[in-house]
């Protein structure tokens, strides 16, 4: 074989073999990820009515229609709201519980498992349980409100509260994942720093502010990126928690992915839906690049 020709040094030959092994996952990614992505991009340039054999070329008309569609803008705004609300909440609450867990001397494994259970539970099941919790008149949450003398809330049935209500469910479910990752990050911080700081008489807030937080930076970056991407792609919770999966009331909870799904699979406008996916792809790409640039400042000691 040409690869084993004497022209290549040992190092080069090794590299070649490495690349050959890398080809396997590469082939997988190309067929499962890249090819469909490119295909979706091309579909977005046609009127791709899935039932119809005629799929006329549209150029950028799908995009024009998309940008003129108020529901698209509404779902885009909602999606950004999902990100803006869920990511910081998950980070702060996740870190809070991770710090508590780290301080706990006993039962740590038990608590860790406990917090992680929601994360490995079916999102659909969780969404329906939350839907029940939020039920007007019969839901436990409203019963609780009545018990302490507060007025009944509509939660998922109100255009003003529905999105926030879904965010609570999302945060609750993702919390376990954040706690676990934060714990790993916390445990990777060398104890020498803490000891040195204590000897210097630093208070615990100062230790947290100047040691823990900076050294957790890679963890925070990772979680922010993952959390943002997840929140941009939010779908299952909205589908299951809004009435008939419509993203209502009044489109107030409709996420971009749900919008795309409805256009593609309810109205059969695959071309239009694909244009939506391309826009979503571009948004995720830009946000991720910005986040990586802004947040990966190395902290050296």
């Amino acid at each position: 074989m040409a690869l084993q020709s004497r022209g290549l040094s040992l190092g080069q030959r090794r590299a070649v073999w490495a690349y050959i092994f890398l080809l396997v996952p590469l082939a997988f990614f190309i067929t499962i990820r890249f090819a469909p992505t490119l295909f979706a991009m091309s579909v977005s340039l046609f009127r791709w009515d899935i039932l119809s054999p005629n799929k006329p070329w549209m150029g950028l008309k799908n995009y024009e229609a998309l940008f003129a569609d108020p529901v698209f803008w509404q779902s885009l705004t909602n999606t950004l709201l999902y990100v803006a609300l869920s990511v910081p909440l998950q980070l702060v609450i996740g870190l809070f519980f991770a710090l508590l867990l780290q301080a706990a001397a006993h039962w740590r494994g038990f608590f860790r498992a406990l917090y992680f259970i929601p994360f490995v539970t079916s999102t659909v099941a969780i969404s329906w349980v939350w839907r029940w919790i939020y039920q007007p008149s019969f839901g436990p949450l409203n019963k609780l409100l009545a018990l302490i003398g507060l007025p009944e809330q509509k939660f998922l049935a109100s255009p003003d509260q529905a999105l926030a209500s879904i965010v609570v469910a999302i945060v609750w479910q993702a919390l376990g994942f954040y706690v676990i990752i934060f714990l790993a990050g916390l445990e990777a911080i060398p104890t020498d720093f803490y000891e040195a700081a204590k000897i210097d008489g630093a208070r615990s807030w100062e230790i947290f502010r100047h040691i823990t937080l900076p050294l957790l930076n890679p963890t925070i970056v990772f979680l922010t990126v993952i959390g943002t991407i997840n929140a941009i792609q939010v779908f299952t919770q909205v589908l299951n928690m809004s009435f008939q999966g419509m993203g209502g009331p009044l489109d107030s909870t409709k996420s971009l992915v749900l919008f795309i799904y409805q256009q593609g699979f309810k109205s059969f406008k695959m071309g239009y839906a694909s244009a939506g996916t391309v826009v979503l792809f571009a948004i995720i790409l830009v946000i991720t690049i910005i986040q990586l640039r802004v947040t990966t400042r190395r902290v050296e000691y």
Partner: protein
Amino acid sequence: MKRVLFVFVAALALVALMTACAAPTPEPTKPPAPAPTQPPAAAPTKAPEPTKAPEPTQAPAPTVAAAPVEIEYWQYFFETKKNLVDQLIVEFQKQNPNIKVVHTTFPYEQYNEKVAASVPAGRGPDVINLFYGWLPLYIDSGYLAPLPEKDFPVATIEKDFIPMVQIAKVDGKYYALPTAVRNLAIFYNKDLWTKAGLDATKPPKTFDELAEAAKKMTKVEGGKMMVAGWRVDLSNQDHNLYREILTRAYGGIPQSDDHKKIQWNATPGGYEAWQFLVDLTAKHKVSEPTIGQDGPTAWLAQQAGMMVSGSFYLGTAKSKATFNWGVFPMPAGPKAQANFGSFWTHGITSKAAKDPAKLAASVKFLQFLTSADVMKKWTPAIGELPARAEVLKDPMFVNDPLLAPFLQTLPVSYASYFVDETADRKALMDAYDAVVLKNADPKKSLDEAVAKVQKLFDDYWAKKK
């Protein structure tokens, strides 16, 4: 060096993949198919057509071809319908031993998706059950084949079937025929009705009387609605109530005859009708959007005294309601009485039409499904009303206290023409929510709904040109 090599290898892999993708995907073959199914139109040379196998030396089969034919029938999952069709298929196969019918059902929510997904794969049903409102979409896309004139003459269809089925006629051809049709009526809880001091022998004749009865049945305790007199639910049937029934009842015509213009707000009557509907929640407070999960659930849980639903709901009500209940006919408005009619209908797919043996078998099956005999079994089992005018006159239906309220208004039942039923419904749901949840101006919200739906129609007709 390394990098160059990598790029080269990656490019090679990519090219290989592209060519693999560009090659025509092989036609998936169905296991027990004696005849080749659905050859793509562009590739006619598909080997020698397997001759219809063994020469029929013995007594020729009574029906279609000699070789056994398998056809596939799809419908959405509705328990009573699935069970009945299973029984009917057994009967049909006894009559036509050479035809085997494979019956597949999908949940209603996924139905269109499943059909859509089957198209690129070149599979799917030969005979399909569709909601009539989806027909324009399925007909325009070429998914359905017109019913053969020799087997289903247009004149005969129009003589034998009730006029509602004509919505399946496009350019003079029928694309689908139903076994049964449905229209709406008021389901009421008799216990709550008498408890509110209402007379069960005197059902409301007008919408105003209906609203009065709803007010009496509504029960509020400590600011909390315990019973809605009339659970208004636009996601269920009440969008139809507005679109086809109330607009006409108040003197409007919902759509222009050529299905190009939405006229809900074209007359003062259209606005009055809308005002009546939103007032039930916003002003009279006989309903709340949050009581019960939805209309039928609230009604079954005795949280609603009344709801609008169809004859198709009779079966569920019979098996699930734990209280005394009844049905009365759709009331009239100040100007007219109208009802909304709809139906699930059977069509033959273009896929089946390409194969003469399958087409013949599909025609047989469709004729069977739309026969008077099947209708007489269908109505008692499902609750839907027979689509043949002559069967409708059968005393067993006319004298049925639960079916009679539906039959009475069948002559004034109209089927709406939809280009996108989901979006059409959602426009009305959103307009209603805007009024009851956000205190929007009813007139303005209706105008917005009309604009949205009009755009759907404009886009649809522009595409057809």
